[in-house]
Structures are given as structure tokens and as C-alpha cells.
């Protein structure tokens, strides 16, 4: 069990000593029991920090935001930023470090182990709460305990946990400066890629029918891109409005700029967008599941990403976010890579 007081004390101490510029963590949100991202820069704010099963955000996104703000303002980074990171979040940070998005000294990782459980899936939880409003959530061994107006409700974690957490192979943040909670790696409740395997068991025709429905629904709000710490490009290849323009850019240039896909939310364009995104995340996605959670129309984006993760693992022995000095998936190769598909 993680003692929240330890985390708060550590954060307070670091802020008081000025060792970090800020602490990125979770605080109780304004939406019922759900936690929300918190940016603390004064020691007295440290008591706002929480750690419970609703801390689902991948906060490493805000490290990316921070770098962008600094670059925009032309400032040097100075002291590091501390961040509360779960296993998956810590792996995202490793990928960012691998890609030299920032240096190891620019970030202070306060690791929190999910200890063999994980975070809740709001949609699954809603089914169990039957409309009751919960005001608090807490870890308790293999259960989650929710406080509702009708009293305490104890639910087995596996019934309300996010799919990705059920399948999580590394709930412990291996890369850290400080870490709380036990390392209970290997206690996954479902086989890795279980959700993917269930989907893949269908024939190609059924898969297409499913995906066609999903792709039709996509409204191209780009929430998945916005919430993803790996989608940090200033210019996004699939979105022509992100291409830079200056006073020298002529109307002709703007009109004739390459448009890989149209901006309309048509099925064909949605497919191309989501597939491109999956390719760009291959070997980088650490399965934090934020794209899935953020999607307003329930497109199972995670399936595309886990498909790539599974192929990378099975065929190339590649684990995303395994080590800072490791190779990147598509910029490296092995002699024994599969080649039988090539004529």
C-alpha cells in the first residue's frame, strides 16, 4: 500500500528546497471522485496530491507541454519538473527521453506502483454504481472501495479496471528517482493482449465490418492526438492546418501544399488518419490507454496501437519504453526479421 503522506511529504520537501520547479500530480477534481491533473509550485499545495484508482491520466503529456511553453518563451529549463508516474506513464517518459525530447536531468520521476491492480474504467464503473454518485475511491488489496451516499461499495478491481490495466505487464515504474509501492510485476489479471486476441479471433470480413462502423463514427476531433504524450509534433502530417505559414507563404503555396488526407470526417479519411497514427506510434506507444479514454465516440483506438505493440513484441522482440538507450522500433532492424512475406 502506498502511504499518500509519503508522497505529499516528498513533494512538499522538494518544492520547499527549490529542487524542482513544479510537481505534476493528481488532485481531487471537480467532477465527483475523479482525480484531475494538478500542477503544484508552492510547498503548501502538496497536501492536495491524491493517489487513488481514478488517477488515470498520463501526466507525461504535461512534460511535453512544459517543453513547448519553455521553447515558445525562449526560456532555459533550470530546475527539473517532478512528475507522479505510474508504470505506463514512466514508460512514456522513457520513450520521450529516448527521443531526446528532454534530458534525464529535466525530469524527476516520482514513481507510483499500481501494485497489481490499476485504474478504473469510467464506463465499466458506471455499470456497477447503478447511477449512484461516488465521492471517493481507494485501493484496498485486490479491491477498489468506493464511497457513495448509500455507504461504502467494495468492488473487485478486475471488474472495473481498464482493459489495459488488466493486461498490464509492467505496473511498476522501472525508471524513477523515487518510488512508492511494491513491485508486483507479473500479477496481470488477463493475458497480455487479451482484448486484441478476442478481436482478432474474428474473420477479416467481420473485422472490416466492425472497423467500418468505428471509422464511420470518428468525428476527427483529434482528442486522441491531443491527449497523447507521443503526438508532440508541431506539424502533423495528417492535418494541413498545422503546417506553418509565414508572411512569405503565398496563397498559391498554401493551396498546393501536400494534403495527405482531407479534413472532412469521411470514413476513408478517418481510416487513413487513425492508421497513420497507429504507424507513428508503433514502438512508441506504451499503452497508457488515454486515446481510448478521451475518444468521445468510443472508437477502440487502443486496439490499433496494441496490434502494433504485439507485432513488435512477437516479431522483433521489441518492448516500447524498456530502456532510455535502447533502439527505436522502425529505425533499427535485425537479420532475423520476418521476410517470408516478400516475394
Amino acid at each position, binding site marked *: 500500500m502506498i502511504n499518500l503522506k509519503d508522497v505529499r511529504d516528498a513533494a512538499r520537501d522538494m518544492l520547499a528546497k527549490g529542487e524542482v520547479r513544479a510537481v505534476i500530480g493528481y488532485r481531487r477534481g471537480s467532477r465527483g471522485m475523479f482525480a484531475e491533473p494538478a500542477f503544484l509550485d508552492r510547498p503548501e499545495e502538496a497536501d492536495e496530491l491524491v493517489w487513488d484508482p481514478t488517477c488515470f491520466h498520463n501526466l507525461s503529456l504535461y512534460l511535453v507541454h512544459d517543453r513547448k511553453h519553455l521553447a515558445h518563451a525562449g526560456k532555459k529549463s533550470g530546475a527539473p519538473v517532478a512528475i507522479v508516474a505510474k508504470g505506463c506513464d514512466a514508460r512514456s517518459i522513457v520513450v520521450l527521453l529516448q527521443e531526446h525530447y528532454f534530458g534525464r536531468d529535466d525530469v524527476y520521476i516520482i514513481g507510483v506502483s499500481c501494485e497489481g491492480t490499476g485504474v478504473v474504467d469510467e464506463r465499466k464503473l458506471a455499470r456497477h454504481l447503478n447511477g449512484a454518485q461516488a465521492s471517493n475511491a481507494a485501493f484496498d488489496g485486490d479491491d477498489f472501495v468506493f464511497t457513495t451516499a448509500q455507504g461504502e461499495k467494495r468492488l473487485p478491481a478486475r471488474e472495473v479496471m481498464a482493459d489495459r490495466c488488466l493486461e498490464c505487464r509492467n505496473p511498476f515504474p522501472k525508471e524513477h528517482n523515487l518510488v512508492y509501492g511494491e513491485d508486483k510485476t507479473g500479477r496481470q489479471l488477463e493475458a497480455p493482449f487479451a482484448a486484441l486476441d478476442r478481436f482478432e479471433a474474428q474473420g477479416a470480413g467481420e473485422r472490416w465490418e466492425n472497423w467500418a462502423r468505428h471509422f464511420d463514427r470518428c468525428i476527427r476531433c483529434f482528442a486522441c492526438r491531443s491527449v497523447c504524450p507521443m503526438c508532440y509534433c508541431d506539424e502533423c*502530417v495528417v492535418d494541413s492546418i498545422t503546417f506553418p505559414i509565414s508572411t512569405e507563404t503565398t496563397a498559391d503555396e498554401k493551396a498546393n501544399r501536400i494534403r495527405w488526407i482531407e479534413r472532412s470526417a469521411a470514413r476513408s*479519411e478517418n481510416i487513413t488518419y487513425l492508421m497513420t497514427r497507429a504507424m507513428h506510434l508503433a514502438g512508441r506507444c506504451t499503452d497508457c490507454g488515454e486515446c481510448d479514454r478521451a475518444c468521445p465516440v468510443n472508437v477502440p483506438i487502443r486496439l490499433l496501437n496494441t496490434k502494433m505493440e504485439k507485432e513488435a513484441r512477437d516479431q522483433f522482440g521489441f518492448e516500447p519504453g524498456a530502456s532510455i538507450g535502447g533502439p527505436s522500433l522502425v529505425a533499427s532492424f535485425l537479420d532475423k526479421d520476418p521476410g517470408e512475406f*516478400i516475394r
Partner: protein
Amino acid sequence: MSEQQPYEPKIVAFLCKWCSSAGSDLAGVSRIQYPANATPITVPCTGAVSPMYILSAFNKGADGVLVSGCHIGDCHYLEGNYLARRKMYLIMKLLDFIGVEHDRFRMSWVSAAEGAKFAQVVTDFVNDLQPLGPQDKLKRAESK
């Protein structure tokens, strides 16, 4: 009953300029007869073929996409085709995953000396694509 004309698939072929492109030339100057369905696009190396090219080709109406480059070990840039092998494997699996017919994407190694092989690769591809008919899964709806 009159015999129906077989569907003529449109193939976009990304050919490495150091080998497969020359291989297709050789097929031509050797007067090898093979279907004219493939539109060649010469690229500097298969390693330069972004998965986006393939998606984009399908998006713009290709019925099949062929990527062809140098045999392993023969890359002009030493390792471009090794990198291509990985990327193309991933995009192939992803296309298959969403339910695009397996035969719509193909990769081959064709050297500059293998004109006959190039003709064979295209012939086989056309034969496999014909029964599948037009590709409409990723194709953009035409604007009026």
C-alpha cells in the same frame, strides 16, 4: 452468355531506383509481355517508402500497392531495405487487421537483372487482384 471482362486493377508500384526500377526497364527492353496495370513510382530506396505512401495510394483509389526493392544485402544505402522490411511488415499487418484483403499489398525483391521476375511479380499480382475487384475500403469518395 457472353464472357465478362475481368476487372483491370490499378496498381501503384513503388520501385527502388537502383534495382526494381531498372528491373522493370529490363522487362521492357527484353520485350517481355506482362500486364500494364502497374503505375511505377520510382523512389530512391524502399527504406524511403513511408507507410503513409501506401495508405495514401489506397486512399486515392489504388486497388493494389506493390513495393519492390533490392535483395537483402544489396541495398545501395546498405540497410534501407532492412528498415523497409520492418515498416512494410507492420503496415501489412495493420491493413490485414482492419480487414483489408491480404492480397492488396505486396512486397518483392527484384534486382536490376531480374526483368523476368518483375514481369512475373506484376502478373501474379494482377491475377490475385482481379477476383477481388475494386478497392473501396480506403478509397476516398469522389467529389462531384
